């Protein structure tokens, strides 16, 4: 293997390793500024592409998520400019942007808390969460599968998320983080 190819393979490995470790944080950042699955997924794809393209500009040892967030923010604003309507307002985005760093810190601890909280949910509610997040179902599809009204699913989902949030908050308090 020549030197160039060897280096490229090392780059792949380094990028993959950092990316896999931080992808949820990056996705969280995008989703926060663009709370729409379809757009957020597209932006995530574009961000990953640009990250890889610019990976030689990333300084080893620095905050990978912060570096990725800069790229993601560019992609989010670009898409917002193109699509215009039906996005969060700039003021709302500013309020959220100010909080994103906090939510990137201690992400693993939060995740651990979330895992424990999920197991505390009643069986039926966990099944709904699984339909939503593991099977990527929208509320309209979940309504069909469970033979319930879409509004009913919205209400239940809102309640389940509130339960999860309260549970995570309590757990973080126990960790001394909230």
């Amino acid at each position: 293997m020549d030197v160039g190819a060897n280096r490229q393979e090392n780059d792949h490995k380094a990028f993959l390793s950092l990316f896999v470790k931080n992808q949820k944080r990056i996705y969280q950042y995008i989703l926060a500024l663009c709370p729409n699955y379809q757009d957020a997924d597209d932006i995530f794809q574009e961000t990953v592409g640009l990250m890889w393209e610019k990976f030689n500009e990333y300084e080893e040892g620095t905050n990978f998520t912060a570096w990725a967030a800069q790229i993601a923010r560019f992609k989010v604003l670009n898409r917002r400019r193109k699509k215009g309507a039906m996005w969060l307002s700039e003021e709302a985005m500013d309020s959220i942007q100010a909080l994103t760093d906090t939510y990137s810190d201690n992400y693993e601890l939060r995740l651990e808390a979330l895992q424990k909280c999920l197991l505390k949910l009643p069986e039926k509610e966990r099944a709904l969460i699984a339909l939503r997040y593991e099977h990527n179902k929208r509320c309209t599809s979940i309504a069909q599968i469970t033979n319930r009204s879409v509004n009913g699913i919205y209400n239940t989902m809102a309640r389940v998320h509130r339960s999860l949030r309260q549970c995570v908050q309590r757990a973080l308090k126990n960790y001394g983080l909230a």
Partner: protein
Amino acid sequence: MLSEKEELYLNELIIKCMDGSISEKELSELNVLVKSKPSAAKAYMDFIFINSGLSQPGEIGTYIIHSENADQTDDKFVSTVLSDNFWNELLISEQTAPSVKIFEEYKKRAQRATEEKQKVQVGPRKVNKLTLAAACLSLAALLFIAVWVNIVPESMQVAVLIESINAKWADPEKITNIGDEMWNSEGFRRLDEGVVKIAFNDGAQVIIEAPAEFELKSQNRMFLESGQLFANVSGRAKGFVVSTPNSEITDLGTKFGVEVGDKGTSVHMFKGKASLRTDSKAHNGDQSILTTGHAKHVDTMRRMKDIEIGHSQFIQGIDSKREFVWKGQNFDLADVIVGGDGFGAGSEDVMLDPLGGKFVNEKNAEKERMNIWAGKQYYSVNDSNYIDGVFVPGVKKGAVVISSQGHVYADCPKTNGKFHHYITNGPAGWDYLNYYDVDGQVYDAVNDPSIYLHANLGITFDLNKIRNDLPGLSIEGFKTLCVREIIEKSYPKASFVILVDGVVKFKSGATLPGDSIPVDLEINETDGFLTLVAIDVDDNISYDRTYFIHPQLLLTSVE
């Protein structure tokens, strides 16, 4: 602090926003809540965290690489990344990596629960899943089975027909009109005439052209027996599957066309990536990942080979109300200046008169247009819906009006205020040759349409009127090759300028015969007017022949 009621409402708004089903009013309420209440902004972020935490990381293998220069990047990736198995590594890690940890415990429990249910069944060990489903009466149990055993109900509504033009169905019992639900229990359908668009419940949208035979299998799967379809699968609909008699195409977030004929299956990848397997039975046959701009054919012996992509082979957009179909072509402005619709309806005999802004027939043109002084007027072109107007730039140095809405070219250089010819598609008239020669490459008027502007001339197109007539499509860019025709007489200098809403987007400087400059501009959806200008540089308009060859608005379908 948020009250319980407020938090529940906030959650509901976020969920709707995530699903793309939020109304304008609700979005505005969400904005106000997040903006005005710090506790709401925090609750919003908590919600987002739960979303990102619970979403599957396994989809990384399916993410497509795009950039501002999508084509270049794709090529780069095909050569440098795919060849080194980058994507394969991602896909393998996706297939072999454990499920998100959060769901693991749940899965174990679900597995145990299912096993417990199976233990109480009487009869052979191999449990019939449907019988099991019927036996488990609680909603929770049914949900478990729906989620983990992946049983698709025997009969369910899986899609809706959303567009239809001149559709004629073979079976009178399966006539389907716009808005009708489509069920997986309906079996094979044959579309004898016309074109239809189907929206699957999971988000994929598919355009099917007659003649075609197909079957809708589930909310994200269909079978194409014969004919051709175009699939647009974005965002969360990823994973949509089209199977054919000899292949299976699994979408990874893309736009692609499939054609099934006597000789096999062809798959054409217009954007993104898809997996193509030469056998619809799982894990059999060869597999290939198709990327943007590539196409493959699988013959009846299941042999796979590369083929040329069919850029305009598939209908990629339809609009029933206007009976409009779009096959992937770009919008040709050279066709518009001869009275066309942008897709080739113009007449080769038509010319546009810069003096007055009217179309004239070449054969009946009463007056020559040689060395004419046109004054400072902006002439609206009422004969064309898409041309806003024409003008002669720079009679005096400074602002020149370049649109009916008052846009100006603020720094237009001074000219003698004259022009020398009608505006035509390609060279036209008695003393012109029917070609333009650029660096040894010959372009001709038939195969290489162009806008011929003899300095000093300008023309403005109304992008919004064009958009209005292109339902379901958006204008992404403008592309052309600015060319100076080669002549042997002298070295007349002229320059090319392109403006959008009065802002200069491209300016060539002085060009000479034989020069050619490619231009590729981004057009945003808020841009209203595109202006092309040819300007004399040396105070002599003789032979200032400037051409905008292949002047095209680049179109793409919107979801």
